[in-house]
């Protein structure tokens, strides 16, 4: 019996916030399509509540037996636009409410997949879904939405970007917080267990369990022990820590899948922060040697961190997927909030950071009077980084009515608080209003 290792594991959970960030059950809805939207909505409710019936019970029993918290239990479904070919925007509300009701019935935190994939163009269901978003996201509580507007293979749909800028703006006029439930992606992945961007891709099995691990606090604590040592030691320390964290994720995911009688999908190797002190990716970057996140060197430190997390995690899990990397949401990370408040962390630095980590501009508050075309242009910049560099990027941005730069906005719970950040005021409208399609980059032609 290795008592030192036993104590190390217990300390990781008790003091360093080690947890399984999410167990997400992916459910295909392709077999729920009926001619009538209300019947389809009923089928959706029935399928989700049947398969996810025991999800919470099984997850809670695993937490208990293994002493590892599972912070979120979630469901992802087939992008709803795909099963809504004939629907009108009003019909879409049946689907949104069916998902919301099903999520509440089984007790999960969120249900993701109120989504559309429009990187190359719009079908009827895609447009209906996007037009329904301001109502769907304000009339439901647990439904999460994502829209993929670009990919390395297809290029960037500028018409979709224009529409999404207007949609984000429209949602912000109805609610200060509903935009936290909407992610605009480039190169979205089909097996992401994290919200708000989780959906169950069409190539996935009927029902699977995906797991997202976390643990920035554990990485920070490990790095405290190698202060002043060379950067290779930092990379090695992160790798070893990521390996341990991911092994727990692999074990928990395999157990949950077995007990639920469904297939085990992937482990998403991520460092996902929460607003709690000591559970922050920013603090890890600062431990590497930055006085405050956002200063010069931040992008390099993040690149190292993101890469070492993957290298450590890959060997620890059977199948890796999802977004896999460090998350840098501003409002959900105590260190990011501090740096944004102090003015050390700016939107342009965040944009640079998204080129080397797993996500994009995430949970960022901007002034409520920011124009729709400026929001679209921010989405376009992120999409360009993702499409050109063969990686996922995303925008989850929160224009907040009646606020000005420096005001604090509280989103509640895990979504945290964020200072309203300044946006460049010069117009991008003529660029966005051109519309059309930015062609796929030359290096996408690989056949």
């Amino acid at each position, binding site marked *: *019996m290795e008592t030192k290792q036993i*104590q*190390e594991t*217990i300390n990781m959970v008790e003091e360093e916030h080690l947890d399984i960030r999410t167990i997400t059950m992916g459910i295909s809805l392709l077999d729920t399509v009926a001619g009538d939207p209300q019947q389809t909505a009923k089928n959706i409710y029935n399928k989700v509540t049947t398969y996810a019936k025991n999800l919470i019970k099984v997850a809670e*029993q695993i937490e*208990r*037996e293994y002493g590892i918290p599972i912070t979120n239990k979630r469901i992802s479904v087939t992008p709803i636009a795909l099963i809504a070919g004939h629907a009108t925007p009003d019909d879409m509300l049946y689907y949104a409410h069916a998902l919301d009701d099903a999520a509440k019935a089984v007790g999960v935190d969120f249900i993701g997949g109120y989504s559309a994939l429009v990187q190359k163009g719009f079908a009827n269901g895609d447009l209906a879904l996007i037009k329904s978003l301001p109502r769907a996201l304000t009339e439901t509580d647990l439904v999460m939405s994502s829209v993929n507007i670009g990919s390395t293979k297809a290029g960037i749909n500028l018409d979709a970007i224009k529409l999404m800028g207007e949609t984000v703006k429209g949602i912000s006029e109805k609610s200060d917080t509903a935009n936290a439930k909407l992610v605009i992606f480039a190169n979205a992945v089909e097996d992401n267990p994290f919200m708000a961007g989780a959906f169950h891709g069409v190539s996935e099995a009927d029902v699977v369990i995906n797991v997202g691990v976390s643990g920035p606090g554990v990485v920070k604590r490990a790095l405290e022990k190698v202060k002043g040592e060379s950067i290779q030691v930092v990379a090695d320390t992160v790798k070893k820590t990521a390996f341990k964290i991911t092994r*727990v994720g692999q074990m928990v995911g395999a157990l949950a899948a077995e007990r639920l009688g469904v297939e085990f999908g992937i482990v998403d190797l991520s460092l996902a922060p929460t607003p709690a002190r000591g559970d922050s990716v920013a603090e890890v970057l600062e431990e590497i040697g930055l006085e405050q996140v956002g200063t010069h060197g931040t992008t390099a430190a993040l690149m190292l961190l993101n890469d070492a997390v993957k290298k450590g995690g890959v060997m620890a899990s059977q199948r890796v997927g999802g977004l896999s990397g460090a998350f840098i949401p501003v409002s959900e990370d105590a260190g990011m909030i501090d740096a944004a408040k102090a003015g050390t962390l700016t939107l342009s630095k965040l944009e640079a950071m998204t080129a080397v980590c797993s996500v994009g501009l995430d949970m960022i508050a901007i002034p409520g009077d920011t124009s729709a075309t400026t929001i679209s242009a921010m989405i376009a910049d992120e999409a360009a980084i993702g499409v050109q560099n063969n990686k996922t990027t995303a925008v989850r941005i929160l224009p907040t009515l009646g606020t000005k730069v420096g005001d604090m906005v509280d989103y509640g719970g895990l979504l945290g608080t964020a200072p309203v950040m300044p946006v460049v005021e010069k117009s991008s409208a003529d660029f966005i209003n051109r519309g059309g399609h930015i062609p796929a980059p030359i290096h996408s032609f690989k056949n």
Partner: protein
Amino acid sequence: MTMSKAVVTVVGKDKPGIIAGVSKTLAEHNINILDVSQTIMGDIFTMSMLVSLEELEGQFNALQDDLNTLGESLGVTIHTQREEIFDAMSKV
């Protein structure tokens, strides 16, 4: 996957009766102790016990509840966890 062992860890201020109390509770659940490691650091008592769960499939929750209650009455923290989590993290 058959699971047959659990680790019981006890941490807290030392006082008479900790080992006695834990052992008695385990015995009441008909659980065999396989290995024990115990130290005192300052006046903090720490103990790890490896126990067999073969007799106990399905009764894990009852044991954990009883040990938690015991921990509260002794003023110590008792964790009861299946062994696999420690193996997962520390062994390749």
